[in-house]
Each structure stands twice: as C-alpha cells, then as structure tokens.
C-alpha cells in the first residue's frame, strides 16, 4: 500500500519539480530553436509515458495487492493487446524521431553564405582564426607549430597570410550572420560548447570538424570545454561576444594577421641578432 502511494507521490513530485525547478534551458542565443523544439516534443511525449505508466503501476499495486481470498487472474498472453501497445509505442517513437531528424538535417547542412571562423583548442586554452580578406583559411598542420607559429600555419601557403589570428580566449561574432565553426585541436579531444548556442562539437586532433549556427542575441557568453581533456579541463574557458556588425568590424580590424605576425617576428629576430652583435664582443670577454 505504502509503495503504491509512494509511486503516485513520486510522479506528482516529479511534475512539481519540473514546474518549480529554477534549472531549465538557458535563454537561447542562436538559430537552434528547432533543437529546443525537438527537446520539448520529446519531453512531452516522454512525460505522458512516464505519468501514464507509473500511475498504472501505482493503481495495479493498490488494486491487486494480496489479501485473503484474493487470487491472481490467469492470462498467459493477449496478442491483440500486445500488438496494439507496440503500434502506439511505434507512433510515439516516430513522433519524437521526426522532429529530431529534421533538426539534425538542418544541423548538418551548412548554409553556403556562412562565414568561417576557426577555433583551436589546446590544453587548456582557446584561440581563434578568421580567414581574412580572401575568405579562405590557409592550410595548417601540427608539423608547422613552433613558438613563433603557435597556430601551425603553413608559411608557404599564400591563403594564410591574411588570416587573422586571435590568441586571447575572447571571440567576437557579428549578430545575425550564419557562421561555420571550423574546429581544430593541437593535442587532445576538446569540445566547443556554448550552452546558449545549443550547438556543440568535438575538436579532434588529426582532423578538422565543424558545426554551424547563427548568433541571434547580443551578449557575452561563456565558452566551455565539454570533452574531458586532462586535469585543466574545468579551467579551459573562453568567452564569445555577440555584437552588431559595426562593433565586430572594429574589433576584427584591431587584430593582427599572420602576415603581420611574420613581419613582427622577422623584425624582432633582426633586432635580437643586432643586439647580439652589439653585445657579443663585450659579453664574450
């Protein structure tokens, strides 16, 4: 008896918890309302099943509890009932799956006009790259990575020269423009995760992964790593600023291109050499 009441109470408590819980989806800041909708549809269908099945369980426990003189009914199977239940389950499953697959189709279909932004992960920080004026990211490889070339850009690739490199963990994006996020890792698996965008994808060393989204709300959001990447996993943070086109353009124009980096490094190297020449004879004494 107590257990029947407990099951019914747990169902009520779960519904109340759902209604009163302060923990729910963050306000969405991207175009992925279709993912939220698929989640809500899944939630309602599952909630109906959860409430229905558990109340049936509670009712059965109450109605058919053992008592003197009571005997169980003998019914090995009832194929009509079983078929009907299978059919209804199939319908419920299809009703959940359809919006899920439709949203996924959208998710894997990157719009042609999407701007490209690359995010690179390494233990335990983020950096970013924009393709610059030519709209094409230059090729990059782990074998090119050095202290002077942390992004591993191919120095011989002309497409890379105008790439804009952002080494701070703060990323800026213009509002309302579809973005193809191209993801690269230098070391281990990471995952580019902004809860408000809904979208996420792993960064995998050795290959380039991607997802796309359109930021729809101005604001600053946390970037987290959502794939365990070692002891600093929880501290691998960044932030993304979604802003109007003008502010974005201003920010972007303040960043350095790979070509500028090369020139700067070159100049620095020359300076170092020059000062070494000056210091050399004295220091050598």
């Amino acid at each position: 008896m107590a257990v029947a009441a407990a099951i019914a109470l747990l169902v009520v408590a779960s519904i109340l918890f759902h209604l009163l819980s302060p923990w729910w989806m963050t306000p969405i800041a991207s175009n992925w309302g279709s993912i939220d909708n698929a989640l809500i549809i899944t939630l309602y269908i599952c909630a109906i099943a959860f409430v229905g099945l558990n109340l049936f369980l509670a009712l059965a426990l109450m109605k058919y509890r053992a008592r003197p003189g009571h005997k169980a009914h003998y019914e090995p199977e009832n194929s009509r009932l079983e078929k009907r239940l299978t059919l209804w389950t199939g319908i419920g499953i299809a009703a959940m799956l359809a919006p899920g697959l439709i949203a996924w189709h959208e998710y894997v279909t990157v719009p042609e006009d999407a701007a490209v932004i690359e995010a690179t992960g390494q233990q335990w920080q983020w950096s970013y790259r924009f393709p610059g004026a030519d709209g094409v990211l230059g090729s990059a490889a782990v074998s090119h990575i050095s202290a002077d070339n942390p992004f591993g850009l191919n120095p011989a690739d002309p497409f890379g020269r105008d790439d804009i490199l952002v080494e701070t963990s703060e990323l800026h994006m213009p509002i309302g423009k579809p973005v193809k996020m191209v993801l690269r890792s230098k070391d281990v698996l990471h995952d580019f995760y902004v809860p408000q965008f809904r979208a996420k994808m792993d960064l995998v060393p050795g290959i380039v992964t991607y997802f796309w989204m359109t930021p729809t709300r101005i604001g600053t959001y946390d970037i987290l790593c959502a794939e365990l990447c070692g002891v600093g996993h929880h501290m691998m943070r960044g932030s993304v600023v979604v802003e109007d086109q003008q502010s974005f353009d201003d920010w972007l124009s303040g960043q350095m291109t790979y070509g500028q980096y090369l020139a700067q490094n070159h100049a620095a190297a020359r300076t170092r050499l020059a000062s070494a020449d000056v210091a050399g004879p004295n220091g050598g004494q």
Partner: protein
Amino acid sequence: MATVTLADDLKPLHHPRTWIGKYVWSQDHKVIAIQYATTAIAVGLLALVLSGLMRLQLAYPDTFDFIQPDNYLQYVTIHGMIMVIYLLTALLLGGFGNYLIPLMIGARDMVFPFVNMLSYWVYLLAVMVLVASFFVPGGPTGSGWTLYPPQTILEGTPGADLGIIMMLVSLAIFVVAFTMGGLNYVTTVLQARTKGMTLMRMPCSVWGIFVASIMGLLAFPALFVACIMMALDRIAGTSFFMPELVSMGNRTGYQGGSPILFQHLFWFFGHPEVYIVALPAFGIVSDLVAVHARKNIFGYRMMVWAIVIIGALSFFVWAHHMYVSGMNPYFGFFFATSTLIIAVPTAIKVYNWLLTLWKGNIHLRVPMLFAIGFLFTFIHGGLSGLFLGNVSVDVPLSDTFFVIGHFHMVMGVSPILVIFGAIYHWYPKITGRMWNDTVAKLHFWITFIGVYAIFLPMHYLGILGVPRRYYALGETGFIPPSAHLANEMITIAALTVAAAQLLFFWNMIWSLFRGTRADPNPWGATTLEWQTPDTPPAHGNWGPKLPVVYRWAYDYSVPGHARDFIPQNAPPASAPPPKGEGA
C-alpha cells in the same frame, strides 16, 4: 513428448575432500557464484566510496585539500570502470549467472567446472591489478571510464604514466576471465538442460543471462583489441589512435592514427555492455515480479523475443554515443533511427511487467519492493535515454549532467535495485536462512527514495547546461547559485544512500548466523532452484536423480488448482508417474 536436452547425468561428480577444495579452489558453480559476488561487491564498495568523494568535491569545492583535480578525475574514472565492468558485469553474470543457470535448468553444474573456477580466479586477478593501480607512482588513470585517446596516454592526464597501463592490462585480463565464464554459461544453457526443459520453458532470468553472455562474447573482443592497441601506442610508440600532435607544447612522434577509431571500438563494446548489464536484470526482475504477484509473466514469448531482439539491435546503435564526436555527421540519421527503434522492444518489456502486476495477487515482500523500485527508475531512465538517442536533442545535452542522470538511472540504479531484490529473493536458498524484514524494508525505502533525489535533479542541471567531469564549476555566468545548492542537496542524498547500505550489509551478515531457518521454497516459486532436495543445495544440486520438467516456468494461480503455483517438475495430474528418468 519430444525433448531435445542432453543432460549428462552419468558422469560421476568428484566431490571435494578438503575445506580448501570446497571453499577456495572450488569447482562448484554455487561457490564460484558466491566468490564472484563477494569480490564484485567488495570492489563495488570502493566505487561507492569514490562516488562519495566526488560528491563531496562537487558540493563543497575548495574544502578538501586531498581532492585535487587529478584525484577527482581518478575517482571519476575508477568509479565508472568498477561499476560498469568489475561490479555489474561480474555480479550479474559471474554471480547470478553462475548460481542460477545450473539450478534453473536442472543441471548438476556448469559444463566446464574447471574453466569456471579459472574464470573466477582470473577475474580476481583483474580486480587486483585494478586496485594495485592506486599504488603505482602517479596513481590510477584519470582519463574517464571511456579512456578516450589521445589524452589518456599523454601528460596532463593523471596516471598517463603507469596507471593507464595497469588499467589496460586489468581490462584485458577481465576479458579473458569473462570469456571463460561466458563460454560456460552459453554452452551450459544449450547443452545441459534437464529432460523437458525446452528453451521456451526456461525462466526469463536464464534467458536474460544467456543472451547477455552471447553478447559479451561478441562485444568484449572489441574492448580487448582496443586495450591492446592503446597499450602498444603507449608502450611501443605505435599510432593506432594517435595522430600527429603536440603534447604540453612539445611535438610527439605519433602520426596518422585516429582517435575516433578508438571511440568506435570502445562503443562497439560499450553499448552492448549496457544491455549485458540490463538483460540479466530484465530477466531476473521478470521472475521477481511473477513470483511475488503470483501470476505468470505476461506475454512470455514476447518477453523472450524482446530480449533476443534487444540483444541483436544493441550491436547497431553504438555511435549514438558519438553524435558530436566529429565522426561523419550523416551517421547520425542511421544511429538515431536504430536507437529509437530499440525503444520499442524495451517498452514492450515495461508494458508486460506492468500487465503482469495487473490482476495479480501482489505480495509486497522486500524482493517485490525492489522490483517495483526498478520499474519506476527504469521507466524514468529509459525515457530520458530517448532524449539522448534523438540525435539533435543530444547536441545540447551531451557531456552534461543530463547524461550522468540518465545513465545512472538506467544502468546504475535500476540494475542495482534488481540485484538487491534478487539477493533478498534468493538469500533463503543460498544460505538457508531468512533476513530481517524490518531492516530490509528500511534499506529499500532509503535507497529507493534517495537515489531518485540524487539523479532526478541531475537531469535538470544538465538541461541547464552544467558540464560533466568538472572538478569545479567556478564562476560561470549561466550557472546560478541555486545550482550549487542543488549540488549540496544531491551530495546529502548520496551520502545518506551510501550510509543506508550498512543496513544491507548488517542484515546479510547477521542473518547468516542468526536468521531464522528458511523454508526450502518460501515464496512458493515454480522454478527448479526452489525444488532442490537440500537447502542450500548440495554439490551436484539434485541428489541421485535430475529433475524432469513438465511445464513452463510460470504456472501461477492456474484455475482449478488448490495451490497458487505448480512447480516445473510437478508431473501433469493425468500423466502416469515418470519411470527411471534422468539416471
């Protein structure tokens, strides 16, 4: 009546002569079962302690100096690994499989008793290597129980030096142990059934364990090769899973490997593994529900086929763990569809359990209470799995606490509730004594309500976006202070549930010595294990003659019978008494 069984009852049994032969190097499936079960539960206690430490850290960050990020990740990893493999798989198959298969199908023992014994000792070795990894420099691996490379074997991950090698070796040894056990379970079910025990007369417990064993034999090799390949990457410098990469700012010699290949191998094992744990639990709970509701399991044939279909389909859904792994995203369509299809036979099982209760004569004894607890948590966990299987819905939820809530509900809590129910159910047969009812009920209530209080809120934290495997949440804009409060509440519930397990252990140990003598068949069950001449069953199980089976396992409350159950070995009233069978 046609029977297809070949019960070899002519082979003489070699009874052990010494205490060591009887209880240590024993080839008796019942002793091996208890060895498996106690070892699994003992190492499970370690996993329980680790989960308590994790919860302390999550609720009270910056409080415990001895829990640093590397310690936390080690707790996460070893907790998960123990629970999934060394506890659940070993206890359900090595423990219950060993105890129940021969008794339920009317055999004297497993068909390969020596290999069966070896299986246990090799399993014990695997456990010892795992536990030993706590004592090597650097400690055990902290790469998460999924052991995803490259980080698993690189600096920056705890235990990347020696711990991971111990882990991989231990897993490989475990697979060897499981293979010896699994071959035994499958062969015994196929070859050693007594006269009259057709496949479609077997209790659901045996069906669940049987199909899970076949699955294990097909799935564990994937884990085995993945372990060997990773060990080679780590020790011999091969690059199966390692592309060209930088580690802590330095270039490594690896090149050309694929981290995603490991994920495919791991989940080709890992997803069937979920059902290797679930199917025995499904089978056992079917029997608990039928016995204590005094009613046949509803739709037995459908239940058996659902087990078989789930077992087969579970080999075609693995990549639903990898929707955002960077694999070809078009795989998502296939795996979302196959994953949601598997929900249909699973749902049928739930309906049939509920319909077994409907119009039953439900005795709310402790094993039944745990079975009901299973139904509730399994419905919850099964449904939350639909979110994660439904590809696009998985995108925001993957790697959040929603995943933690889901899989703990569905493959942590629910099978463990079944295990408790099963231990209470068969304890009188195993020990010949009854447990204390009041303490057992208290144990049930705290555990059942407590686990729901732990794992329900986690789903909501996950929908909010709280990431998993985080040592500390720190200052994160979207995580409100109330979420930290939730973490404290969850920890209090978790520590309460953990403490309540003392009731269980006290009850089991106290009852072993002081419990009242149990009736040989206290629940009025039909299946063969309750019809043994001795309680606990002696070596060889059946005395001079094997039982002969005349009916299915679920003749409860048959109209026209005075008693509300007819044992499987009770001859039909009209038939002449059997002559000279079995011998």
